[in-house]
């Protein structure tokens, strides 16, 4: 036995950029977060060649989960072709040799910033969400130590107080993105800044969702088939954005979450936020074949 048989030959970089111990820690923390759905697990959060706050949390999870066969899709606010999404996708492919795709149905792993694709994800798919602020209690309890005690005690009264205040002041719940939700009836989490439209997609979803905040060094998860319930008053129902009746000006698709494009005359045009869904719709319209999968929303409504 010699040193050369015990060690691997020198390489310029580990597979998937992160070193073995970093990935081992992340795997353990992911397992823990799957075991206690919605509960934030601290992790070390290594340096990656990207600024904190640009998706480093999601990137570390993706780099840990991929193998050379994993087909990776990266989206930023629904779009596959934004600079940030393209850069992350290229980086993962370069350091892990993974194939990439833009098609939601083809992907094994989807890293996303602020959206969940409109097509239903399957059991064999993993969604990785980038999280800027993982602590739902921060607006009501700035002291992190006390906030952790509150999670431990399921002391969430203040979260409803926040909603109460919004209704009293504005006549309705004003919380848009990051709508606090109760996971598995126990922990309140922030589902990352996805719109209200996307929160119901997490409820009893077939896929695994891992949420990771690189700057804040926290990881949490929604395992497959887990209850995710937005916090609401029993007599004030949860409402998603009123996008159900909007039509995309480019693809003509209706009943999905839209981006609003202000026009010169002061009016607004709408474009479907899930860019690949738009592309697929256009292809179908132009006779290039139907590639669209089943969607969570049907005719602009989320079936119960």
């Amino acid at each position, binding site marked *: 036995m010699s040193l050369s048989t015990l060690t691997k030959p020198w390489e310029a970089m580990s597979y998937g950029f992160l070193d073995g111990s970093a990935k081992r820690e992340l795997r353990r923390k992911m397992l823990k977060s799957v075991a206690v759905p919605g509960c934030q697990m601290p992790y070390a959060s290594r340096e990656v060649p990207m600024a904190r706050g640009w998706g480093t949390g999601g990137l570390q999870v993706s780099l840990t989960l991929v193998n050379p066969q994993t087909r990776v899709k990266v989206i930023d606010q629904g779009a596959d072709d934004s600079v940030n999404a393209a850069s992350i996708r290229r980086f993962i492919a370069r350091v892990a040799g993974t194939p990439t795709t833009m098609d939601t149905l083809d992907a094994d792993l989807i890293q996303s910033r602020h959206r969940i694709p409109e097509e239903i994800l399957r059991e064999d798919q993993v969604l990785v969400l980038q999280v800027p602020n993982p602590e739902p209690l921060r607006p009501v309890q700035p002291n992190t130590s006390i906030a952790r*005690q509150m999670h431990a*005690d399921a*002391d969430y*009264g*203040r979260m*409803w*107080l926040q909603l*109460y*205040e919004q*209704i*009293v*002041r504005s006549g309705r719940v004003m919380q848009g993105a990051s709508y606090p939700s109760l996971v598995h009836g126990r922990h309140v989490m922030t589902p990352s800044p996805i719109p209200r439209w996307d929160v119901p997609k997490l409820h009893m979803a077939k896929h695994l969702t891992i949420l990771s905040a690189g700057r804040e060094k926290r990881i949490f998860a929604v395992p497959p088939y887990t209850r995710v319930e937005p916090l609401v*008053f*029993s*007599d*004030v129902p949860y409402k998603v954005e009123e996008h159900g009746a909007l039509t995309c000006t480019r693809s003509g698709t209706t009943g999905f979450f839209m981006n609003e494009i202000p026009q010169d005359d002061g009016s607004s045009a709408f474009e479907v936020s899930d860019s690949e869904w738009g592309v697929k719709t256009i292809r179908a319209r132009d006779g290039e074949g139907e590639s669209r999968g089943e969607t969570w929303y049907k005719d602009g409504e989320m079936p119960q």
Partner: protein
Amino acid sequence: MTLTLDAPRIVETRPLLEVHGVSKAYGPVQAVRNVSAHAYPGEVLGIVGESGSGKSTLLRMMNLEEIPEDGSYTLDLPDVSGNLFELDRFARRMLCATKIGIVYQNPHLGLLMKHSSSGNVAERLLVAGERSFATLRAAATEALDASEFPLDRLDAPPIELSGGMQQRVQLAKAIALEPALLLLDEPTTGLDVSVQALVLDTLKRLQQDRHITMVIVSHDLGVIRTLADRVMVMRRGEVVETGLADQIFQDPQHPYTQQLVHAKL
């Protein structure tokens, strides 16, 4: 010397609140030394003493904010048993939220100053698990009304309110869940005399209408005289004298109590 009093013979109910032999030191300062106190259901116990006498520390113990080194604390209520100082954090929080109300001298301690007044009251019910907006709204309105808070200011944040109004919000919050025990820490200190009278009157009314057991701490003898049935005099962390309120004020026994009573204008 006067006579030693017997144990109660006519009143057979147990005291609602019993604190026995509590002591607490902050570093070298002995804030409370071997103090015992009790209050019967519907009774108002007044605790007087100068600053540093340990009266506020004792009250904070009754609210389980402060855990003494020694001693026991019991409340004679259904589903409540044992020494409350031994409860874990979770049980303590639920007990305080549902059975005990408190009004602090400093409204900042008891209120979220930038939330709405009604929201401050509703929070108590939220902690206890109420999740209907309409119920929260109705209960907050009712409690604020009972505290004689002007209902057109229901959603004004306490930071915009006068001191007297802030105390009413605290009071409404304290009584919203109909607690068995209401703790008052210098509830009128720092208020104008006329506002003070109104707050005292509200307290008196609540006591008569709801028969809540109260413990009120004050260095203001006028406040204690107006509200208390029985008075406990504290000095340097110890109880020097207890008695019926009129007896303490008209026939104080201990030199310190005499000094205190005679110093009153």
